[in-house]
């Protein structure tokens, strides 16, 4: 059930139709989005971005960030599938929302777009830090770049940056290459390299730094070079996705429509890359791309169909799993050549790449190792931009039964012979001993 733009506006949030079309395993794309704004002017100044969402079927609910009636959930169920926080200066949310409730919202599997800006509040920074993104702690700091700024008439301090250092991932940014650089004006942040959940999507150039452009630079800035991230995404362990940008204005109509010329470059683009960049990124954040599901995990002995409760060492086993990707409207077969199966007991005893039939089915056959114990069929698939697949199925492997060993071993024939010869000899000896005098 897809809601059109006008319907979405008319029908109240709690209506059954909206609930039924909510975020679910079958159609993981978000539907109901809460947009928190500093003031309603942003709604019109950023209308292009919002419109692109609404035309894709999202139901946006605009609220002021300090609206006293704000609530994320009612009676224990969430009212929204995702949230957009375009309220960088808000010190405190209205209603029942605070930083912890936003994070709980994420931890229960919902998505978040967070835009900070110069003069961001502690609240926004706190949420970002909890998600693994550290904004420049200098409250007046902006990202300044004297080499790859956007050429414009009035700007002299080079804080309007034209960046084209995108992450190379078709899943996150779409398969169509973004030609024009992206305009950015705001604060920079860093991500911990040890943090595997955060990914830099748009990085600053190596000449960038973060400092107050109006002050004289006395100390060397703490954030410098390409370690500065302008836009980052987070995929939490429960596959909730978060977009964190240091600039609110990069979503604005002005930036989306603006023409762009990067300093030092002669090419002038009619339109900045912002629209394409943000549209593609929001597709990813709202699970229209890169969301995988695995189902029908099956394993059985070669030549059998039933799944046994236990395998024996050296059994030949077949394993299959179906993997699909959500395209925004339907589940499409996921095709890749790097899906691996582990036969695992404390460490993988077998690690094998599965072959696919291009229709979503992955399968392989393995030989159970000569080790007994409680094994697991494990598929751990963590690929940049895709949701994590983590399957494990426990299966014990037993040793041979007492009657499953080879009965007569050729190498032992001399021993068999010896024992029978012994028996015969003893019999003959007894006879001769007893009956010969």
């Amino acid at each position, binding site marked *: 059930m897809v809601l059109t733009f006008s319907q979405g506006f008319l029908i109240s949030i709690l209506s059954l139709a909206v609930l039924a079309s909510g975020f679910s395993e079958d159609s993981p794309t978000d539907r109901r989005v809460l947009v928190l704004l500093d003031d309603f002017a942003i709604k019109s100044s950023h209308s292009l971005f919002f419109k692109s969402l609404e035309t894709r079927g999202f139901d946006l609910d605009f609220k002021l960030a300090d609206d006293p009636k704000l609530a994320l959930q009612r009676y224990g169920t969430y009212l929204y599938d995702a949230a957009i926080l375009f309220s960088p200066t808000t010190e405190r949310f209205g209603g029942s929302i605070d930083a912890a409730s936003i*994070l709980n919202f*994420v*931890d229960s599997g919902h998505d978040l777009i967070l835009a900070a800006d110069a003069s961001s509040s*502690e609240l926004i*920074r*706190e949420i*970002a*830090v*909890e*998600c*693994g*993104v*550290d*904004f420049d*702690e200098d409250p007046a700091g902006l990202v300044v770049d004297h080499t790859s700024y956007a050429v414009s008439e009035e700007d002299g301090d080079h804080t309007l940056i034209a960046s084209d250092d995108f992450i190379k991932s078709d899943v996150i940014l779409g398969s169509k290459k973004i030609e024009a650089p992206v305009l950015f004006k705001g604060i920079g942040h860093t*991500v*911990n390299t040890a*943090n*595997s*959940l*955060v990914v830099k999507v748009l990085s600053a150039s190596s000449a960038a730094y973060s400092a107050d452009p109006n002050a004289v630079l006395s100390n060397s800035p703490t954030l410098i070079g390409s370690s500065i991230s302008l836009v980052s995404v*987070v995929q*939490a*362990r*429960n596959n*909730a996705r978060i977009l964190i940008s240091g600039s609110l204005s990069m979503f604005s109509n002005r930036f989306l429509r603006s023409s762009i010329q990067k300093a030092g470059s002669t090419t002038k683009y009619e339109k900045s890359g912002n629209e394409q960049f943000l549209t593609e990124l929001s597709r990813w954040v709202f699970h229209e791309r890169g969301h995988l599901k695995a189902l029908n995990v099956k394993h059985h002995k070669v030549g059998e169909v039933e799944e046994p409760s*236990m395998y024996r060492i050296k059994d030949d086993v077949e394993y299959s799993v179906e993997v699909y990707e959500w395209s925004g409207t339907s589940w499409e077969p996921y095709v890749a050549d790097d899906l691996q199966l582990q036969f695992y*007991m*404390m460490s993988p005893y077998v690690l094998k790449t599965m072959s696919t039939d291009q229709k979503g089915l992955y399968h392989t056959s393995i030989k159970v190792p000569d080790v*007994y*114990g*409680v*094994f*697991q069929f494990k598929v751990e698939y963590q690929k940049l931009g895709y949701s994590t697949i983590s399957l494990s199925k*426990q299966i*014990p492997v*037993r*040793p041979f*039964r*007492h009657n499953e060993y080879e009965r007569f071993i050729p190498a032992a024939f001399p021993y068999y012979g010896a024992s029978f010869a012994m028996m015969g000899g003893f019999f003959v000896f007894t006879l001769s001993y007893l009956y010969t005098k």
Partner: protein
Amino acid sequence: MALEDTQEKAVRHAFGNVLSLFVLLLIGVFAFSIRLFSVIKYESVIHEFDPYFNYRVTQYLTKNGVYDFWNWFDDRTWYPLGRVIGGTVYPGLTLTAGTIWWILNFFNIPLSVETVCVFTAPIFSAFASWAAYLLTKEVKGVGAGLTAAALLAMVPSYISRSVAGSYDNEAVAIFALIFTFYLYVKTLNTGSLFYATLNALAYFYMVCSWGGYTFIINLIPMHVLLCIITGRYSSRLYIAYAPLVVLGTLLAALVPVVGFNAVMTSEHFASFLVFIIIHVVALAYYIKGILTPKMFKVAVTLVVSVGMIVCVAVLAILIAVVASSPTKGWSGRSLSLLDPTYASKYIPIIASVSEHQPPTWPSYFMDINVLAFLVPAGIIACFFPLSDASSFAVLYIVTSVYFSGVMVRLMLVLAPAACIMSGIALSEAFDVFGRSIKLQFPIGNQTDDVNAGNSSQVSTNNSVKQESEKTENTLKERPVKKSKKKEKEKEKEKEKSESTSITKQIEKKLLILPFEASLVAIVLLVLLGSFYVVHSVWAAAEAYSAPSIVLTSRSHDGLHVFDDFREAYAWLRHNTDVDDKVASWWDYGYQTTAMANRTVIVDNNTWNNTHIATVGTAMSSPEKAAWDIFNSLDVKYVLVVFGGLVGYPSDDINKFLWMVRIGGGVFPHIKEPDYLRDGQYRIDSQATPTMLNCLMYKLSYYRFVETDGRGFDRVRHTEIGKKYFKLTHFEEVFTTHHWMVRIYKLKPAKNRIRGQTKKSKSKTSTGKNNQKRGTRATKKNPYP
């Protein structure tokens, strides 16, 4: 006249036989019933740790049959390694109980498996006392046999292992041990191949039942060697020994858990060596028979030299084989027998078990009581005269005394030997005293017509009757009883006829003591015996009947019952997923699988040191590291036993140093000194930071301060060092009524990874914490 005599003799014989049969029956009943205190005081329940495993195995056996039992791969223990139960368990006990259950069910007696398991041990202790009777009878006659049986029926050491509910291998193994020895001695006395075969079968049953069978397969060769050296070689000895080695080894190899160990490990080598020696000796005797003395001397040198060469060669091969293996072919437990310091030096996992420690002197008095004083007399009695059988008894007591001194658990092997010796001593003493009284009694001052042995047998019979009946009615009017006895004795003496053999009379005269002295001595002996009975009954009722899963304590306001263990296991069974894994120290593994039916990481079958060390390391690590270890093992719940609230001393904090040692033995980053302050183990404010931050401390003392406001540990008698702390990677899910078992759940991995910026609003957050702590600290203990 002669005809009358023989008739009278026959009647008396028959009377004696019936009487001794009756006494034996009573001893059996007594042995059974003295072990029922635990059922009466508590309930019909399986005790302790290992019995729970045996119970679970028996359940599996009765449900799935012998073949499935044999091939049972258990995936609920030692996760993720699993355990091949059929191949690693001594099946004797399980098969025995399973057979009993099967027979009962066949006759439509619907007893539950648990009931059968509970009562297996008392039944077999009755069998054991009968076996003791048989063995002692072979050594020193019926009287000694009955005395020994009566003593064994109530020896505290054996009771400790065979009360109802103590469903462990030793319960049947002691019977098997004594019975095997009986058949060996019987074969030795008769030279019958029939008994030799039975002996091998009894040995097979022993091998099935208990790892202690190595004691048999070393003791019997020792005795054979002793006989050969003392020139007592006979064909009977050969028949008693050779079939046992051949058949016994073949049969032992059939038991899956022994398998090739029966010929590969050095515990068995002694028997093979003696097997060779006895053949050399047999050959020597054979050659001696067919050769002239002169030729024989030549032959002896030849044979001896050849034999020596063979022996040296075999010995060299053995040494080479044994030396090539790292443990020198001996298993750890056996090595710690020979070198008592071995285990504590090299194998902490063996040393950590309290029953593997050397016993203290009081434990001898506790476990065998007055028998300790009677044993020397019994040994002396065995030398008058020294026979093959009595030399075996002496060897048995000597070796078992040594072994019991190494490991307190082996007191169990000493107990039957002590009973046999004491039985011999008592019966000999009563024999001498009784005869002295009889011969000097004014009326019956006539000598025996029957031969000396016979008369002594009869009189011992009487004294034994006294002894055994006395044991039956411990605290009743003894004087009356005794006077009755004496009258009976007198009557019998009167009946005795007068004809005599002078030589016998002279022999007897030597052993006759003054009348009064004999009387006093008998009274003293009876008193000694009654002390023993009182002590044994007390031990059975008070000391050894606690099932240890249910605890009781007496205080000024009455009896307290601590049923926390079963409470915790029931919680696990009802509130966790079937495939969830529970980690705890290995002591509680068997109980968790049997009572909670949950998969455990390690259990009391300590076959994999590394795995136990992993759990020990986790327990001694800080929370984060512990969480990583447990998570890698798919553990969902962690169970700790904590006695600090009620003063239960054998809790995990007291066992903790062993976890550190065992963990540190495999993972060297765990170091024992880090947990000790100046060599002292403490948990108060002087404790080391490593100690206060390790998982075991945290899980034990989490929220403990809420109980009394200051965190006073009643086991360690001190206030704990770190009172207020939070758990970051674990959450408490269940704590039992008396806090004896605490169960924690591993928190799932964090959904997000936090950035590096420090929290700026530190003021407000600490304020909150303080508030929380304040409310918590004021909260009263819900379970005072």
